[in-house]
């Protein structure tokens, strides 16, 4: 959005140097890489992490298009660094309250019936920067703990079937949970309600067509579509059916939402509907008056996106944006709103509604309900300020 009008640059048209000389041969990169002109499109950290193995990096959403995130740009969140796992030595144990506990090699898992699904993944800490008001940060740092991929693997229910199913619970016993554990140096663990996720969760070995990347769980990862990203346990080595949550560190010390009365919400798994305008967004600049598409992303952990409205006057008037088909379950959905910039200041907002009828709330409503210290699950309407000079800011 920032180059000079074309007319100044190249008229009459020249034959450029890259037409006059042969380019690079095939297999210059047997595994390809982006153009050097795209070197600014990389993951970034929001701050200097004191311990960079227990840290996160974010997806450059403002530079992405469509609905998928290339594997090289999928956000990172690690608690003990990225292990370099030999897939031939990796094992998945499925045990606990099951009929026949088993150990699976990667080859075993590849022999089980698989499926592929496109789903977003969002850290529940995403956009926590905005709880106390506009942070001034650009989109990558406010909303970049968000990615969307095609995941391929084995349904959790299939795996359970391969171990003969859960053992029958005593009448009146509490519903089963399942503990997922990673093989990383944090041996990451989360407890999940088994019945709620059995048909939806996948144990995946591939992402966007190829095997998982190391920083995204190679060789094996759990995904729980719609749930907070921390439950997508990476480097998965163990699934244990249990009779209640294990109250692990990640589900007590972290990933709980402190309320003003000092109590905290626990097991708040699902990601509520949310949306954000990706173009124009902070750091970009409008260069001429006239038509601009206002483009963004919307998603919900509870189903599909039913609609997105956009306001260009700070929330006084709202109009429907176009949603790009297909609108997928628990996946990023692109919206576009046709806008004519007259050259004055403007405040751009987007508001998503999902298939359950839930409407993305304002920051004020979230703060009224949860106070200022609940950190996780911030999904407030985001506003970008367009200046009369075409600059865009998170202000």
């Amino acid at each position, binding site marked *: 959005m920032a180059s000079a009008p074309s007319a100044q640059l190249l008229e009459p048209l020249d034959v450029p140097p890259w037409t006059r000389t042969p380019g690079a041969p095939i297999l210059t990169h047997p595994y390809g890489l982006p153009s050097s002109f795209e070197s600014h499109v990389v993951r970034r950290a929001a701050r200097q992490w004191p311990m960079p193995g227990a840290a996160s990096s974010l997806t450059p959403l403002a530079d992405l298009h469509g609905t998928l995130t290339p594997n090289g740009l999928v956000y990172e969140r690690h608690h003990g660094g990225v292990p370099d796992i030999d897939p031939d030595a990796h094992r998945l144990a499925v045990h606990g309250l099951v009929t026949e506990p088993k150990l699976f090699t990667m080859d075993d898992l590849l022999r089980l019936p698989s499926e592929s699904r496109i789903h977003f993944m969002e850290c529940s800490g995403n956009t926590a920067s905005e709880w106390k008001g506009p942070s001034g940060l650009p989109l990558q740092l406010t909303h970049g703990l968000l990615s969307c991929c095609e995941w391929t693997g084995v349904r959790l229910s299939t795996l359970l079937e391969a*171990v003969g199913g859960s053992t029958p619970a005593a009448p009146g016993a509490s519903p089963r949970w399942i503990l997922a554990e990673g093989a990383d140096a944090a*041996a990451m663990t989360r407890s999940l309600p088994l019945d709620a996720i059995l048909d939806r969760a996948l144990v995946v070995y591939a992402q966007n067509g190829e095997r998982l990347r190391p920083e995204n769980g190679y060789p094996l990862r759990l995904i729980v579509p719609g749930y907070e990203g921390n439950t997508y346990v990476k480097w998965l080595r163990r699934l244990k059916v249990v009779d209640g949550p294990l*109250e*692990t560190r990640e589900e007590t010390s972290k990933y709980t939402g402190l309320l003003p009365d000092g109590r905290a919400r626990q097991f*708040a798994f699902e990601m509520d509907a949310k949306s954000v305008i990706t173009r124009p967004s902070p750091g970009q600049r409008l260069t001429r008056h006239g038509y601009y598409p206002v483009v963004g992303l919307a998603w919900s952990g509870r189903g599909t996106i039913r609609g997105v409205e956009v306001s260009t006057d700070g929330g006084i008037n709202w109009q429907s944006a176009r949603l790009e088909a297909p609108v997928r379950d628990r996946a990023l959905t692109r919206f576009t709103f046709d806008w004519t910039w007259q050259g004055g200041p403007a405040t751009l907002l987007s508001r998503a509604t999902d298939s359950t009828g839930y409407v993305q709330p304002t920051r004020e409503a979230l703060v009224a309900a949860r106070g200022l210290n609940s950190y996780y699950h911030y999904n407030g309407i985001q506003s970008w300020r367009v200046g009369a000079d075409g600059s865009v800011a998170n202000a």
Partner: protein
Amino acid sequence: TPAVTTQTVAMPSTIAGIGTPLDASAIAAWDIDIAPDGRGLPPGSGDVQTGARVFAQKCAACHGAQGEGLIGDPLVGGSGTLRSTAPKRTVGSYWPYATTLFDYIRRAMPYNAPQSLSADEVYAVSAWILNRNGIVPDDARLDAHSLAAVRMPNRDGFVPDPRPGTL
């Protein structure tokens, strides 16, 4: 032309043969989770004094000499702050179960050498952290029984997710 068979998953009964049966002894080294009622706690024990030595040696560099936090989280303090505008969530002020402390230290700490502590060391350093938070007395010695019996100050501080239906 062939019949159309589009389904997401159909289960061949033959998958029952995939994977290797696993007995409890084979998985012992991985089966380290601990339930909030103490199930899974190993034999062994440790006292506050021993814990102080372990902590000074293996934890203080990252968490501070008194557990006050450095490049690792603060582990001590924050009592009474949860309702304030600057809440401080620590093991002492926030964590609902002592079993979580044992489990997490055993699986993930010290950060630079996870799963390197003996069960006795984990009991001891847990005892020291709880003692610094005023939860167990100076002469406490923790084992599977006594650690499971510790009642954490914020034990009743958690409520279920009220969503959907309310913000």
